[in-house]
Every structure is written in C-alpha cells, then in structure tokens.
C-alpha cells in the first residue's frame, strides 16, 4: 500500500494549504464573534442564556447538514441583494465552521468570566479600574488559560469538520477522503485522514504551548507558539499569490462518482493544454451542481440529460434521447444562459441490474418480469435514487413494490448485490462493474426511464468562450460507452486500482486513436480485454518488484 499511499500524499500539500486557510479563517471569525459576545454574556445573564443557547443549538446540527444548509441560505440571500454572493466554496464553509467554533470558545470564556473570584472583581472596582481596565488588566489574563482550552477544542473541531467542506465545493483534505471513499481507494482516504489528524495534533500542541505559557507567565513560550502558528498560516497563503496573478482560473465541477472524477480530469488536462489555470471542485451533490454552474461557482462540468430533464425541468414524460438533449440545451440557455456544448457520445442511464445467475433462475429479463417477483426481493439503490422522479416514474409504470429497499454509496451497492444483501440494484449503464460482475441488466419495454446522455455544460461566463469551446469540442461525440466503462472500471475495480487522473490519461490515449465502431453485444469482450490488460500490468509490476 506504500506506493499508492505516497502518490496520494503528493496531492496533500495544495489541499492542506486550503484546509489550513479555511480552518484558520473560521477559527478567527469564531473568535471575533464569540469574544465580544462572551464579555457581553458575562455582564448580562439574559444575553448569556440566549448566546449559549444559540451556540448549543448550532452544535446539535450535524456539521454536514450545517454546511449544506448554507447553500440555499446564501443562494436566496444572493438573490435578495441582486447576486454576487458565492453560495458554494469558501464562504458557506467559513460561515458554517465559524458557527461551529462558537460554542467551545463562548462557553469557556463565559464560564471563566463568571467563575472569577468575586473578591478579585470587587478589588478591581475598589481600586478604581474602568470597565476596560478591569477587562484588560484582570479579567483577560485570569480567564486566558480557560479560554485557551476552549480555543484548542474549537481548533480541533474546526480542522476535523473542515474535511466536510468538500461537499459544498471548497477544496480541503476532505477531497482525498471523499474521492477515496467513492472509488474505494483506501490510500487516498488514509492520506486525507493522516494529514488532517496530523494538522489537528500540531495545532493543538502549539495552542497548548501558548496555554501553558500564559499559565506560567512565560512570554517566550507564548510567542514561540503564536509565531509557529502564524508561520504555518503564511506558508499556506503562499500558493495563493501566483494564482491570484495568473488570472484565467477555470473551475471544473464533478459529482461524487468515478466517471465524474475521470471526466473532470480529462476536461482539466485539455484546458491546461489550452493555457487555462485549472481548479477542481469534486464531490458536489447532483442537486447543487447545476445551480453552481448557473451562478458561476464552477465553469464547466458533465451532467446527464435525463437528470436535468426530470429533476431541474420537472418533466415526467420520456421522449427520445435527441429530443431530451435538445430540450435541455434550449431550457438551459433560456433560463440561465448556460451552454450545452454537446453530448460526449455515451449514456449513463439508471439500469436495474441483477446477478446474472439469479436473473436466469428467477426468469427475470425485463422490469415487467421484475414487478411480479418484487415483493420477495430487496432493492439496493444509491443514496439519492429513491428520492428522484425517475424512480417514481418506473415504480408507477410497472407497479414495482419491493419487500425492502436499502441505500448504499455506489461502490457498496455493487458489493451488496454480489453478497446477496440486495437482489436488484439501480446500477449505472456506463459502469464497468456491470460486465465485470456478470450482471443482467433488465430491459425497460415501456420506456419509463429517460435517456441519460452525458452532456458537456459551460457556465454563462464561458458560454461564448471560443478558446474553451475549441479546447473541448474534440470530446463531443468522442467517447463510446465501452471506453467509458473501461475507464470507470480502472478506478472502481478492487485489484490494481488506478486513480481518476490515471484513468483520464488512459481515456485520452484511447480518444487519440481512431474510433472503431463496435457492435453493442461486445461489452463483455471489451471488459475482459481490460481484464487481460490488468493481468499483464500486474505481472509487469510484480516483475519490477522482484528486480528491485
């Protein structure tokens, strides 16, 4: 595991820098809010009840949900003031984490202030201190150690929770963890966890040094701790300067599964070659990603025609694939000036899949066959399918009623099918595991599931960007479903996993070759061809290891 782990660690520095900046900003914002509030609370019991009550309430909201809540909040706020407030990325992460940091700081500061020996406060008044002198000369130095303990807690929480900011499109060490979880790349998960944990430990140790320095009245200790913390933040700021001067930064969005990660890298490589500075916002939820594009938080991403057709546009009919693409393109341009550059050439539709042997034994080949036996079967779905209109359409068209339904992350969904925990899953038609696991995809004779052509979308700001269009045009109609399946499988398979970036490079090499049209029945063949490939690389690597 050391090889993949160290290559995953190579992605750490950039992400660590933005993680540090986010956590430090959130902690400072939390301090800026909670310190005045704490002083006010210590002087007024009513304010204390309200502020501590509010901070505790915030703490009961799961941090993931708190981050997610800021998206619609900022979106409507932005609409209210006529736009300009980013609803994704740094701002919502900062606000959510700052709120999260409030409680430990506020609680310790108020407890410290209220717990001061009344005799000391009386003496401070008695010798004629003003309210400000009392705060500066007596209360602050005496409360500082307790306050520092609160700041330490807040810092550790903030650094941990900042990994979740990935979900609202803010790069952080969470990118590694989420991408690793989705693609079952444990080296990535481990790299993200180790980096975040080390960061938290170091920051906690430095704050602890300051805390002990204050208690023991050793100034050098306080300054050493503070100096090292500031140096760390300055170091994290360093990567910002060149890119701030660099200008044309393009943000590429991706949802949270392998195909999206791979396509984002393919797009990124092309734009870099065309002279753009590229940034990735990965792991965005399918519900927010289109809004993110429309509001310019991301500049380009790949979506699926049926997803927009049913979820964003609210249709429940299923016309032909070209009609859906045309409808989506027209709607996107009209309503939000988003440009659909074109379809990539493959479809990633929802497909009901069963284990081949089970389907054969139960004589199930179509969704209509499935409906008859559904009451004895368990449906495994991804996290969102059961809430989507596509599921309602299929369910109502065939009268599907399952004994049980269970939700999984996509990778675990395939494992659940293999292990028998689920009998049917809502698979994706471009997924390499369908062929690799010998799954039977059930036919949809009533045409209840719309077409899901992968389409390349550009933000309003880049809708007329000829250079970008020229750089990405070669991808239009260029990716056959077999190629996409193989690329996905490179990332999704259990043995000899590739990173999305490696899979993207593999895919690009394939695109450069002339595309030979294949009969659609050759899916299994093409995947076993990939398998043969895997075996040969495997052997080569073993040989290399032996040599070294």
């Amino acid at each position, binding site marked *: 595991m050391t090889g993949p782990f160290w290559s995953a660690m190579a992605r750490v520095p950039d992400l660590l820098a933005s993680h540090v900046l986010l956590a430090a900003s959130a902690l400072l914002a939390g301090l800026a809010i909670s310190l005045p509030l704490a002083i006010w609370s210590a002087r007024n019991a009513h304010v204390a009840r309200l502020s501590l009550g509010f901070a505790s309430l915030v703490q009961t909201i799961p941090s993931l949900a708190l981050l997610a809540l800021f998206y619609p909040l900022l979106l409507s706020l932005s609409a209210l003031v006529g736009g300009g407030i980013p609803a994704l990325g740094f701002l919502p992460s900062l606000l959510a984490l700052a709120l999260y940091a409030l409680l430990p700081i506020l609680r310790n500061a108020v407890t410290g202030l209220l717990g001061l*020996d*009344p*005799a*000391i*406060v*009386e*003496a*401070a*008044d*008695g*010798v*004629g*201190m*003003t309210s400000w*002198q009392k705060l500066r*000369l*007596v209360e602050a*130095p*005496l409360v500082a150690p307790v306050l520092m303990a609160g700041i330490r807690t807040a810092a550790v929480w903030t650094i941990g929770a900042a990994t979740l900011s990935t979900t609202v499109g803010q790069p952080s060490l969470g990118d590694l963890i989420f991408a690793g979880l989705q693609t079952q790349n444990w080296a990535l998960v481990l790299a993200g966890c180790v980096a975040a944990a080390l960061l938290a430990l170091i920051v906690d140790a430095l704050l602890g040094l300051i805390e002990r320095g204050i208690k023991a*009245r050793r100034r050098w200790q306080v300054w050493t701790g503070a100096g090292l913390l500031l140096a760390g933040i300055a170091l994290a700021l360093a990567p910002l300067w060149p890119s701030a001067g660099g200008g044309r930064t393009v943000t590429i969005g991706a949802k949270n599964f392998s195909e999206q990660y791979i396509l984002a890298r393919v797009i990124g490589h092309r734009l870099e070659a065309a002279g753009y500075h590229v940034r990735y916002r990965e792991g965005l939820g399918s519900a927010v990603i289109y809004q993110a594009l429309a509001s310019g938080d991301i500049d380009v991403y790949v979506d699926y025609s049926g997803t927009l057709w049913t979820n964003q546009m609210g249709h429940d009919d299923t016309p032909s694939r070209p009609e859906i693409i045309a409808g989506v393109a027209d709607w996107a341009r009209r309503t939000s000036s988003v440009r659909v550059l074109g379809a990539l050439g493959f479809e990633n539709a929802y497909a009901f899949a069963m284990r081949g042997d089970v389907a054969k034994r139960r004589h199930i080949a179509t969704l209509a066959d499935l409906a008859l036996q559904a009451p004895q079967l368990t449906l495994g779905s991804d996290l969102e399918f059961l809430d989507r209109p596509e599921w309602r359409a299929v369910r109502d068209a065939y009268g599907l009623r399952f004994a049980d339904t269970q939700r999984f992350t996509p990778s675990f969904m395939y494992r659940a099918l293999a292990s028998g925990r689920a009998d049917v899953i809502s698979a994706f038609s471009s997924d390499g595991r369908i062929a690799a696991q010998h799954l039977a995809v059930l036919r949809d004779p009533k045409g209840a599931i719309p077409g899901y052509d992968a389409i390349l979308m550009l933000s309003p700001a880049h809708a007329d960007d000829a250079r970008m269009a020229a750089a990405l045009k070669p991808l239009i109609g260029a990716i056959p479903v077999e190629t996409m399946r193989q690329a996905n499988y490179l990332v999704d398979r259990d043995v000899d996993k590739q990173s999305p970036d490696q899979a993207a490079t593999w895919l690009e090499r394939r695109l450069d070759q002339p595309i030979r049209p294949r009969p659609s029945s050759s899916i299994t063949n093409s995947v076993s061809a990939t398998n043969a490939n895997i075996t040969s690389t495997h052997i080569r690597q073993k040989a290399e290891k032996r040599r070294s």
Partner: protein
Amino acid sequence: MPAPSSANGPSLAFEAVTKRYDGGTMAVDHVSAEIDAGSFIALVGSSGSGKSTLLKTINRLVEPSEGRVLIAGEPVASTEPHRLRRSIGYVFQNIGLFPHMTVAENIAIALRLDGERETADRVADLLDLVDLPREFAGRMPDALSGGQQQRVGVARALAARPGLMLMDEPFGALDPVTRDQLGAAFRRLHDRLGLTTIMVTHDMAEALLLADRVLVMQAGRLVADATPRALLAGEGGEEADALVAVPRAQADRLRALEGRA
C-alpha cells in the same frame, strides 16, 4: 492625587441615605450622620444590618436609592465612580489580591492606573509602612499567609495616598492574634497619616478598642451613635447595650476563671 503623607482625611456626611432592593427589601433606611475629618469610626451591627451596604455607598460600589453621601462637602455622585474610588482606600474581608500579579504589582496598581511608571520606591515605602520585608515585593500573593496578604491589601489601598479609608470587616478572616496585631498596627497608621477611617465590623470588642466613635446599625437603621466610653457606660441605648453585653460578659467570665485558679 498628590497629597502630603500626613494628609488630613476629609469629613464625611450621610444625608438620609436609603438603599431599597428590587424585592422591596430595605438594606439601608434613611441613615443620616456627620463624621469629622480625621476620625476613626466603627460601623457595628449583626449580619444583614446594612452596615456594608452603607459603607459601599461612599465609594459608589452601591448607589443609594435615595439620599446622598458627601465627602468634604462634595456629593460623591458628582465624580465618576472610577475617579472617586482612586481617591479612597478600600480594604475588605476577602482581600482580593490579583493572583496573577506580584506583591509589588498589586501594591502599585492604583499608581499604574494613574499612569505612574516609577513605582519601586513607593512600593518599598508602603511595605515598610505595613511592616512587611521589602523582599516580598517580587513574590506572588499565594506565597503569603492570610495576615501578610491583608497587610499587602492595606498597602495597596494606601498607595495613592488617600485621605479616606473604607474597611469592610478587614480582619474578619484572620486568626485572633494576627487580627489583634493588624488592628492595632492600622490604628497607628491612621493616626500617623491623619486619615479618616470607617471600619465595618460585627465585633463590638474590636470596635470599642480601635474606634473614636461607634455607629450601631440594625435592620438598616442607625440605632446608636456614641464614643466607646459612652457605650460602655450604657448610654448607647437598648440595641447597643445588647451588643456591648457580649464582650463584657466574656471578660467577666474570663476574670472569674482567673479568680478560681
């Protein structure tokens, strides 16, 4: 507030001073009294009689609901609380030394508030004044005994050369021997510096032995106002007699014990 070290303390007057709390409790009920410059007054009463509250109306730690307090003819309400307090020494039972400051920093705090930087000589003088070794200057308060801490408390109160000293049960938490020593030592300082001192105590014996004049409070009202001699002669009235009876009875019993031995 630069003043000669032998400053004469100011006179003091209470004019119908009343403190009523929100619940309707009368802590102080229309108290009026004139106090001569340079006198040592003991304010005596049982717990809850309102003596501490009355004392704190002088340095505005408590604002009266009605009536007013005058120092040298000047209403205290006409000076900002923190300025007023810097001209008045305040010593109280729980001492309240700042635990994060050295003895010297504690003593010099009032000077520092007034912007003085060179305080080392003054601190040394003050340590001499309260009979503490000069090398105590660099120690932290928690390294001192209770009696030593209260000596520092007295030095801190005297640092800005106030004419008026307010003492709220100053020696109440000390052992009897230390308490007696400190009481006598402070009385000598009072005379030497020409202070006006008002000392709250629930101990009539201490009041009789230290003060020039004893005011007795009960349920927020002033019920007796007399010299120690007059009180011992039974001229203070019923309530004062009851308080004087306690130390007197103790003295009698001690004498009886001695006689038997």
